[in-house]
């Protein structure tokens, strides 16, 4: 079980959190201007790469804060992301 650093509560067990996926996936500012293909890509695709991934996590069974961490998908090494939002 991972230890996730919540910015408000500190290191807590993973089962208090939900992963919100890659933070690089940002909702397009003007969805109407996207093509169907671009929109599907935003909806369904992640880079899912091996290595450090910047992710949203939600402290759902805690303070309910959403925050960003950098997680290495190979080693599970976790760093709080240097900026609030990617």
């Amino acid at each position, binding site marked *: *079980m*991972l*230890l996730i650093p919540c910015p408000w509560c500190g290191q807590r067990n993973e089962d208090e959190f*939900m992963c*919100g996926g890659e933070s690089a996936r*940002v*909702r397009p500012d*003007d*969805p*109407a201007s*996207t093509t*169907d293909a671009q*929109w*599907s890509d935003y*909806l369904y695709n992640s880079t899912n790469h091996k290595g450090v991934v910047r992710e*949203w996590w*939600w402290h*759902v069974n805690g303070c*309910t*804060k*959403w925050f960003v961490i950098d997680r290495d998908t190979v*080693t*599970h090494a*976790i760093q709080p992301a240097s900026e609030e*939002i990617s």
Partner: protein
Amino acid sequence: MSRLSSGGAIDRRQVINFRFNGTSYTGFKGDTLASALLANGVRVVGRSFKYHRPRGVVSCGIEETNALVQLRSDLDQPNIRATVLPLVEGLEAESINCWPSVNFDVGAINGWLAPLFPAGFYYKTFMAKPWDFYSRFIRRVAGLGQVPKVADTNSYERVHHHVDVLVIGAGPAGLSTTLAVARTGARVLLIDDQSDPGGDLLFDTAIIDQKPALEWVKESIETLAQLDNVSRLQNTIATGYYDHNLVIAVQTSPDESWIRERLWHIRAKQVVVATGAVERPMVFANNDRPGVMLCASVAGYITRFGVQPGKRCVLFTNNSRAYEYLSVLQEAGIKVVEIVDCRESVDDDSLKIAQLLNIPVVAGSHVVNVSGKKMVRSVTVRSINGDANLHTVSCDLVCHSGGWNPLVHLQSHSGAKPVYDSENVTFIPGKPIQSERSVGASNGRFLLSQCITDGLETGQKIGVELGYEFPEISFEKQTNDVNYAVEGFWAEDDNTGKAFVDYQNDVTRADLALAMRENFQSIEHIKRYTTAGMATDQGKMGNPNVIGIVAQMSGTSMTATGTTTYRPPFQPVSFGVIGGMERGALIIPARTTPITEWNISHGAAMNEAGANFRRPFYYPKSGESMQDAMNREALATRNGCAIYDATPLGKFELHGEDVPELLNRVYTNSFSDLPIGQGRFGLMLREDGRLMDDGVTFRIDDNHYLMSCGTGAAPVVLGHMERLLQTEWQDLKVYLINVSAGWANVCVCGPLAREVLSGAGMDRELLDSMKFMQIKTTKVAGFDVRVARVSYTGELSFEINVRRRDGLQLWELFMQAGKQHDITPIGSETSGVLRIEKGFVSPGIEGDNITNPYDAGLGWVIDMNKPDFIGKRSLQRDLNIGGERQHVVGLLPDDHNAKIADGSALVPVQAPTSGNPEFQGHVTAACYSPTLERTIALALLKNGKNRHGENIRISGLEGSFTATVTKPVFYDPRGEKMRA
């Protein structure tokens, strides 16, 4: 009897009675079941997994593969290792894998049929024909032990613990590590699987600083006991090592007698693995016969339990350390008749030991076969190079020692890969992946002096790394080590008999050869094909032999062959301790409302509802069937008055100037112009355009809104809005507060609802003036309430929201006031009937991850002229793609009393002449409508909204019915009743 007249750490004054396979025996306090059985001369303790060969005790510790028993006296537990099971009064155990008895086992015929059961037998034989047919027979005989038939009533618990340093194992290495770390002041937890500290020293006659080793253990423990920063747990075994230095350990029989086992979740800044090593068997024909035992284990039974496992012994070894035990054997009266050493040259020290004890050493030779079935009678020995020196030695005990395997399992769980140590012919811990160090024998330091030094040095390093001061102390520890000098040896198969590499899964050297002939090359594939190393022992004893033999057969090195991955748990873990206290009603604790107790005491049939609530299903009166009760409740709602507990609905308060903007973005329709005191039905979509939830949002004041949503959807809706506000739309000035649990909500509905409420003291003028979808703040009998006129039943309906603590009083007030109108409490099943009659689409039922709002007939709630809302772009995509879609429709079966199961398929009325009928949709909800006096259903049907009036066939488990497709509304299509 094989008990020695003296010696051992057993209390001979305390006799313990136990039963094994129905026979009564006695042992002493301090015995394990295995030692007591050996002391009673019981040689055959079980049958093997596949060939049902008689098996005896092979080791004296956690690595045991053969002596597995079904423990009948303490619960009914399968596959308990007799070697670690403490003997207690009244213990009762049975052998596994045998019928009718361990001494005469019908399944042993598998041994004669062995040529028919090679590795991969099941894959080859049964996959071509229907597996379902064979599985009935195979399941009956497969597997170890029997699943317990009675529920476990014991108590278990789980605790979390945080320390600087966790030391696993209280043997010489673990103890010295703990001593060193403790002196720095770091907080240390020392856990150990045995009842007493000492590890292998408990089974040994070693000397430390001119004293018996156990004296040193005792002094060390006394030192640690005086330190506040050290805690210690015995009977606690680490079963898994997980991410971020989390170790899970199971403590059995803690001091608190009401707990059977306790699960420890231990987070440590540094983990020290000091789990030691286990002796490895030699691989030779019939090496599984009862009486073939590991050398150090035989010495262990003598030293710790005063048991003599045999009288005439042959020692078969590939290392010098085994010679260390010769004097122990001889002193116990065991005649060691010959030492068979597969090394060509044996070192002088070892030869000197043999010479002193007057034991002949046959070097460069190996044991090629064992005779005797239920006990060893003799061994056949010959030279490694050809048939020279072929001879037979009679004996009743074979001690074999193939070297030692460090228990690298926990380190392997942590993500590290074991590496091959050619000097010691074994796999040792590789580069640590987490904050972890292995010490002592588990680190490939097999000599006692190495263990202690390794531990002390590592302990000091850790303390300093963690920022503690380390006082100067001397490390010198004198021990009576002998050298190890192991040489790997795996003989070619000469077909003299089965040579086992994995006792527990009955895998032989020949199985490995077969797997390789069939071109399995990777060790991971060979493991899975032969099942070597896959049983409950996880290859603790046999794995290096498997790797050695595979390397030899394939002509590669042990390093190139590599190891398989060891996975948690290190030893079997009971389901009880995994569940802990979360069992029965506590698995998912049910949420209650202020009305729950009233409902139960008034005979409501309670049922699971969304968000972990339990709600009344219906309220049966005496003699009423479920259908009767539902009919009565539904008719009361339509014709008189009804009451239900709507507290579980989600309720969120929204404050701030940007609330309308948020609502416009999360709902499909517009909320810009909602007047104060008014509510509006809103539809919420997921970003992929599928139904998420529907509900009514009221405007309480300028910047103050109240949103309601479905019970089950409440956590999802809250999470959805929280996420958007905290991530995508941080600029919106909105406070979102979940008040679901703060308010009780009592709904009074039906044509007589106003009479009931005014009778309870509500202002009649207010009731008459309130329009559909309005909300008012008022008082009822002194309670401050919010009254909302919304309807989920299709009738005139008022939801009265009140402080949670006042909910029950308000409910009882309405019940009293409604008495003269025969007010009827209704359950969720009746609400379902009312919903289906009205054709109110439920996102959780008609929404099936494909249905979009147009499919559901909710197009009227969608404002595609808004610049954006969640789901809009995906809806546009649906429209762009076009094509045939499923729509929500109503169904009127020709048979008015048809019993239709939810989920029934919709197919064309005419059955096809060949093949399966075309699937055209399914029934989402069906019920008997007492108002219409017939069965009705809602369904999703291909192109349904253009097919009203057509006939369709409903095909389900309950039968096949023809039906007419209609609009999905059966009652009051214009909504005049609920607006009345």
